[in-house]
């Protein structure tokens, strides 16, 4: 492990981990019997830490994220999180029958925020993602990048300490994605959230994270980790980002190659 986390003096773990994944495995019933998707994964996310999970298809990275989100149960091992995590998907998953602002207000309502505070809080969150004035906009009136920013605001409305992101920018064009990387970094700085970000894009992983965790495929295991100390704000075209990306890509390719050898 690149990061070893010390337990707090009083022994409580709630404050020392945003998420703690211990010896987690997951198998699904497949055509050839039980198929092991995740095998003995152990991973901690510290409060305020930005971790990316990187892997090729079939490494179970989305499955792992679903487990952390509590949408599915692990077959073995335990997952503890500091409260219920927020989750962002590759698709914006905004509700089309509500306006942008009402989507955020629904998240607030389900969290028990009183009615008279919701509107103002939603406006604040929209301002945080630089969409001031978009409260009354319908989802289909927004561009792809704007939708993902509203989705981000909705996720932030949950006030979780941990934000899970499942390839949230994969469907966007390169310029918009680049802008949203900057936005995410800025918001992460401002909110001191912990982020667990799943991607198959090596440069994106290096651009964003403090720590990159490479998963092997079929079954998913933690193959290797890198701690990234390139100072933020980074750019995706920075030489240091590119250099580390080359190294990680080599490793990822090695992992993929192993599957063609039998």
């Amino acid at each position, binding site marked *: 492990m690149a990061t070893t986390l010390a337990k707090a003096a009083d022994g409580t773990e709630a404050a020392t981990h945003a998420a703690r994944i211990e010896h987690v495995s997951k198998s699904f019933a497949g055509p050839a019997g039980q198929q092991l998707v995740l095998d003995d994964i152990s991973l901690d996310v510290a409060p305020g830490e930005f971790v990316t999970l990187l892997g090729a298809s079939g490494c179970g990275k989305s499955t792992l994220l679903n487990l952390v*989100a509590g949408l599915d149960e692990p077959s073995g091992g335990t997952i503890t999180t500091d409260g219920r995590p927020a989750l962002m998907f590759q698709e914006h998953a905004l509700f*089309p029958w509500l306006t942008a602002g009402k989507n955020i207000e629904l998240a607030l309502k389900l969290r028990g925020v009183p009615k008279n505070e919701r509107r103002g809080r939603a406006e604040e969150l929209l301002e945080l993602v*630089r969409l001031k004035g978009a409260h009354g906009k*319908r989802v289909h009136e927004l561009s792809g*990048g704007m939708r993902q920013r509203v989705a981000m605001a909705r996720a932030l409305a949950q006030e979780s300490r941990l934000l899970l992101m499942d390839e949230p920018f994969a469907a966007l064009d390169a310029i918009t994605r680049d802008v949203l990387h900057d936005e995410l970094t800025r918001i992460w700085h401002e909110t001191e959230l912990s982020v667990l970000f799943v991607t198959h894009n090596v440069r994106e992983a290096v651009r964003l994270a*403090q720590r990159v965790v490479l998963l092997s495929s079929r079954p998913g295991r933690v193959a290797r980790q890198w701690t990234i100390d390139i100072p933020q*704000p980074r750019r995706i075209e920075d030489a240091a980002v590119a250099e580390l990306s080359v190294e990680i890509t080599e490793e990822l390719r090695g992992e993929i190659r192993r599957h063609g050898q039998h």
Partner: protein
Amino acid sequence: MASTDTTTSAKDPGDLAGLEAGLDALETVHRGRKPFRRTFTEKILPPVVAVALVLAVWQALVSFRIVDDPTKLPSPGAVWDVVHQAWLQGELLGYIWTSVSRGLLGFFFALLIGTPLGLLVARVRFVRAAIGPILSGLQSLPSVAWVPPAVIWLGLNNQMMYAVILLGAVPSIANGLVSGVDQVPPLFLRAGRTLGATGLKGTWHIVLPAALPGYVAGLKQGWAFSWRSLMAAEIIASFPDLGVGLGQLLENGRNASDMAMVFEAILLILTVGIAIDLLIFSPLERWVLRSRGLLVKD
């Protein structure tokens, strides 16, 4: 993070905000309202032309004596005279109101029964397995088949008419809601669950609004079935004490061998059915779809 360069971070947010504003402006499409003239030529003119064509062909069949028997095919003018006469005698609105009030009240009851029933079938596995297939099978049963038993059970009265409407419309409304719920994208359910919308909260905040387009389609079909069932009931169970609705008018025309009256009744049944759909259900459906960006303009 500690080594963040303060000068860049001070300059960067401004740049980023500008860049983002530019992207947002470029990618947002503004659509104006269509001018009335285009609405007229695209939406109003075509059906008017179609109706005029049908009338012209009808008139030609009579004028050129292709069908030379007024008891088989009355002229458009003769039918218009009958309608006009009914209007002058103050009976026309009475016929229409008798049927429309029955139809809408019956539809309202069907709505009250069909909605919870559809929700139960959609959400409770046992109920779905038990009555789901029967419910969709009932849709293919012509509701005219319910008229004889309804007459025997309830007699010749308004209750019988409502029973036939319910049996015709409830399955449509319930099935519409079921298919609406079935078509809710799983992503919405997952997103709802991560936001804390589970159980009844999930049904109320996520499932029902997401199922609305299917539900509205079911309502639209439910109205069509209500109207059809009611006409079948009125034609078969025509009884002087029940008052003259459009179905009875049709039956009276047949008994009097008055083809102009038969045509009058058929045209009125058609017109009322279309009018209710155009005035209530189509605008409702358009509003639901448009607010979700599902109705593409041009």
